[in-house]
């Protein structure tokens, strides 16, 4: 089969809408345009029913007992903000301490930073060199003032999957609310809020082949009943936690995307894992001094993150970007001009953070694409090493750490 260029292998940043999702959404733009909060006519009833059906599909995907526990938001970032700030404000009388990790997505980290400025205390539990949090470190971080534990389910850069069930048990034991940012995990690997003791869960549609602009927050109603202070005041929609007219077509698309993911998860994750392993094996066996970032086993099946010593990440992307879309943890590709804090948190030298590349596969990638990407990546890295002064020094046997670098 002929490859269509450019190849998209950046599926942890976003995914294309599944055509079945678009099909489900279309009627809700035109003929079924009602406001779900219009209680007194069929347009409203139809829209409300569609949103509730979408809620039920999302609830099923994450093992929630009751569709009412699904609150629609504008996306993962809003869900994370609502979960953390909502708990902080609501339970402030009880305590002002939050436990989270050093590798949360920016929405989690920055929300916690803001709360710190407002008088909260936050512990950022470090990760081990394999990217996994030691649950005992979380236990040790808990104080009698802790009101929230917030730990991401699977990491957006290195794909590592935390022991969420163990953290859920710990949270129950200590009577602390447990939030997980599951934006990268939902729809890809089994997630079960009941079995895993999750009280709040953030997810988003556009990472599961749904539309951009809609996310969800699971808010537990029983054992315990979690209450949140809203970020947005208004008509009291979404059980008062998130006012605003629901974007019905987006909600319907999210529901359909969740339904498809649930149906195909077992088959799809096995297929993507095989493709990912093929990509990983080809690259690691053909390029020396290439390091896998994150635990080799406890990792999302569609994620591969590697550091190519002696070459800078953006320069690799530049060599590939007409043919392949990837992302890098290098400073030059970030808005902040800082290298990836996630790779840095693994204890790797920041040089390796600058050299990291993330490959993330999706539903529509093929074996031909994987083989092409592996081959071109190897070529580009080899070419760049030939022009790298670090590679030259290392080949001469110079220990790069022995050099007094003159940084600006």
């Amino acid at each position, binding site marked *: 089969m002929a490859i269509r260029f450019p190849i998209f292998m950046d599926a942890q940043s976003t995914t294309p809408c599944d055509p079945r999702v678009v099909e489900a959404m279309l009627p809700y733009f035109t003929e079924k345009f009602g406001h779900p909060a219009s209680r007194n006519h069929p347009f409203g009833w139809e829209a409300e029913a569609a949103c509730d059906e979408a809620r039920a599909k999302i609830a099923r995907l994450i093992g929630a007992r009751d569709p009412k526990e699904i609150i629609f938001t504008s996306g993962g970032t809003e869900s994370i903000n609502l979960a953390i700030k909502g708990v902080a404000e609501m339970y402030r009388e009880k305590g002002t301490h939050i436990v989270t990790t050093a590798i949360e997505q920016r929405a989690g980290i920055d929300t916690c930073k803001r709360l710190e400025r407002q008088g909260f205390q936050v512990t950022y539990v470090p990760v081990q060199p394999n990217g996994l949090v030691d649950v005992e470190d979380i236990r040790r971080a808990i104080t009698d003032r802790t009101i929230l534990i917030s730990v991401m389910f699977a990491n957006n850069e290195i794909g590592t999957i935390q022991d969420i069930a163990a953290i859920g048990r710990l949270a129950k034991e200590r009577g602390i609310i447990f939030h997980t940012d599951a934006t990268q995990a939902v729809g890809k690997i089994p997630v079960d809020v009941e079995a895993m003791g999750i009280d709040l869960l953030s997810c988003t549609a556009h990472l599961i082949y749904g539309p951009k602009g809609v996310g969800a927050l699971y808010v537990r109603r029983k054992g315990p009943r979690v209450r949140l202070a809203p970020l947005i005041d208004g008509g009291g929609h979404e059980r008062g936690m998130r006012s605003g007219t629901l974007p019905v077509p987006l909600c319907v698309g999210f529901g359909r995307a969740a339904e498809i993911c649930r149906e195909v998860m077992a088959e799809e994750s096995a297929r993507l894992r095989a493709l990912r392993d093929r990509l990983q094996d080809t690259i690691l066996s053909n390029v020396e001094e290439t390091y896998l970032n994150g635990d080799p086993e406890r990792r999302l099946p569609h994620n591969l993150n590697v550091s190519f010593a*002696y*070459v*800078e990440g*953006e*320069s690799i992307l*530049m*060599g590939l970007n007409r043919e392949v879309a990837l992302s890098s943890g*290098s*400073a*030059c590709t970030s808005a902040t*001009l800082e*290298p990836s804090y996630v790779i840095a948190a693994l204890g790797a*030298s*920041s*040089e390796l953070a*600058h050299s990291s590349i993330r490959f993330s596969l999706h539903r529509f990638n093929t074996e031909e694409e994987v083989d092409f990407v592996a081959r071109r990546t190897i070529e580009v890295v080899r070419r760049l090493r*030939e*022009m*790298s*002064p*670090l*590679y*030259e020094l290392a080949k001469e046997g110079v220990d*790069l750490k022995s*050099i007094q*670098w*003159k*940084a*600006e």
Partner: protein
Amino acid sequence: MAYSEKVVDHYNNPRNVGSFPKDTPYVGTGLVGAPECGDVMKLQIKVNPATGVIEDAKFKTFGCGSAIASSSLATEWLKGKTLAEAAKIKNTDIVNELKLPPVKIHCSVLAEDAIKAALADYQAKYGAPAAAGAATT
């Protein structure tokens, strides 16, 4: 971010990549930047000791596409210049030529530093030739 055509050209067809053999005389070498900052440039000049003219230049760069382009361009400009003329190359010249966006200005600064370091290394080894004048800052 979209790259300027000139950056893409230098990235795809870098000029003067390489290193002079270790024992080559009349070579000045500058090594600037740091791996943990994501940019390291090695820039070498080979000088005619009689005239003070740079006859050849080479570079190797660890860094983003703009860093590679900045150092590639620098080697192109250095060839045929006297040491004194070379000392006058400014990072802003590189920014203008490559149309670097603000976030990439540090790449041009590093290239200017690399030129200065190579000149200083040459002068430390061989002294300033008459033609070069007093090119110290």
